[in-house]
């Protein structure tokens, strides 16, 4: 701040210039003309490119508010889910005192989650990944099949292997493994599709290559944060349209048998 008394009297321009020496993009601004106090160049500059705390860089002008807010919402939902999940894991690892006494050794837990739960701290935290996974989960949950499924089978009545279970986005998985779990989950959900015509269903079923599904069951290890690299065969499987698996329950049982072996 200039200590010079005159800067206060030239309030419009020199104060302005002094406060905002650099634009939001980091470049030095050229000083305002004296005659344009209402130009509000600050706001027009801000519109061009400004950096929000969350984003990696300048926000492109093309983005509209609708999209921006949806992205914000997705991010904050994922953060909230992560806090809940962390609490849930901690509770499972450190149950109430009286429960501990009655359940004996630490292996016998009521919460199934802790048996499979990753070591504390070993959960997926990368926001991009979590958001991508959440989007895939959302596609599956936005189906009639899912609605019918949750109405028909309450959570408590779910049997592992028989009933589809939403993949846990917080567990560490390779990209391929995760994508495969999603595919299988969605295939299983199709068992609850609303009744449709027979003819078209059978046609589409032929496209599933059961051999490929079995291959990926074996969960090949890749590093968790490599971008999506898949051998061509899996590419073929995964490029099938999301809803091309319109299975009848009988067909589903075949695939599940294959999984369980």
């Amino acid at each position: 701040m200039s200590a010079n008394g005159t800067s206060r009297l030239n309030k419009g321009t020199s104060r302005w210039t002094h406060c905002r020496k650099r634009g939001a993009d980091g470049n030095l601004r050229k000083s305002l003309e004296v005659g344009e106090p209402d130009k509000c160049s600050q706001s027009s500059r801000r519109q061009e490119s400004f950096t929000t705390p969350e984003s990696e860089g300048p926000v492109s002008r093309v983005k509209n508010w609708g999209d921006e807010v949806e992205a914000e919402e997705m991010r904050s939902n994922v953060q909230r889910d992560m806090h809940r999940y962390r609490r849930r894991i901690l509770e499972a690892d450190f149950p109430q005192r009286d429960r501990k006494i009655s359940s004996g050794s630490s292996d016998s837990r009521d919460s199934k989650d802790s048996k499979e739960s990753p070591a504390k701290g070993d959960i997926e935290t990368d926001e991009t990944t979590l958001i991508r996974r959440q989007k895939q989960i959302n596609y599956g949950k936005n189906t009639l099949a899912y609605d019918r499924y949750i109405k028909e089978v309450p959570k408590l009545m779910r049997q592992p292997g028989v009933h589809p279970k939403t993949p846990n986005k917080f567990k560490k998985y390779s990209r391929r493994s995760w994508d495969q779990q999603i595919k299988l989950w969605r295939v299983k959900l199709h068992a609850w599709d609303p009744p449709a015509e027979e003819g078209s269903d059978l046609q589409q079923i032929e496209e599933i290559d059961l051999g490929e599904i079995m291959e990926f069951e074996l969960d090949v290890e890749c590093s968790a944060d490599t971008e999506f690299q898949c051998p061509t065969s899996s590419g073929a499987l995964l490029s099938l349209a999301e809803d091309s698996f319109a299975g009848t329950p009988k067909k589903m049982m075949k695939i599940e048998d294959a999984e369980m072996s």
Partner: protein
Amino acid sequence: MENSSKEEYKIQSFDLETQKLLKTALKDPGSVDLEKVSNVIVDQSLKDQNFSREAGRICYTIVQAEAKQTNGNVFRRNLLNRLQQEFKAREETRKRSTQEWVCLVSFICNIFDYLKVNNMPMMALVHPVYDCLFRLAQSDALQNEEEVDCLVLQLHRIGDQLEKMNMQLMDELFNLLRDGFLLQEDLSSMGRLLLLEILEFRAGGWTLSETAQKYYYSEVTD
């Protein structure tokens, strides 16, 4: 019930057919054209000063209703994008009609106030809102009581939230207001009073001391 919801959402100024549309949107959003609903609301907000200050509430309710019923956010998306268009054209709007301009600002701020995302204000609106307030703090706008009035109303309502989202911008804004109050000669005395009050309001942590409250808001007995 009919009248109370009219009151609550301040939709009396709409024609009856539109009122019906809005009421249906509140109860059964999936059955109406939500893009049309959002346009209807924005259009009215730009014309009706009272509605522009309260429209946030009805928008919020429709957003919630849609999310619950269909898991969608068509309404919110359309509303925000339409608002963005109006925001981009704000300088022309201001030239054309001060009334429309202050309605626009009131509406954007009201939306910022009511439409929260997981209980947090929408970050996408922070800079646009500040842009509007900075515009109102320019000397040509400060001359105009209508604009000063709009400015201080918004700061009363959402100033503390805005400050939390970006302290630096709020400081800069208040520098302008201070300067305006002190140095701008063509302010009306009402304009000056409004500015002084808002300066004290923020200085007091977004609230007025009891004595200040008495000074500004009590009836003066002469």
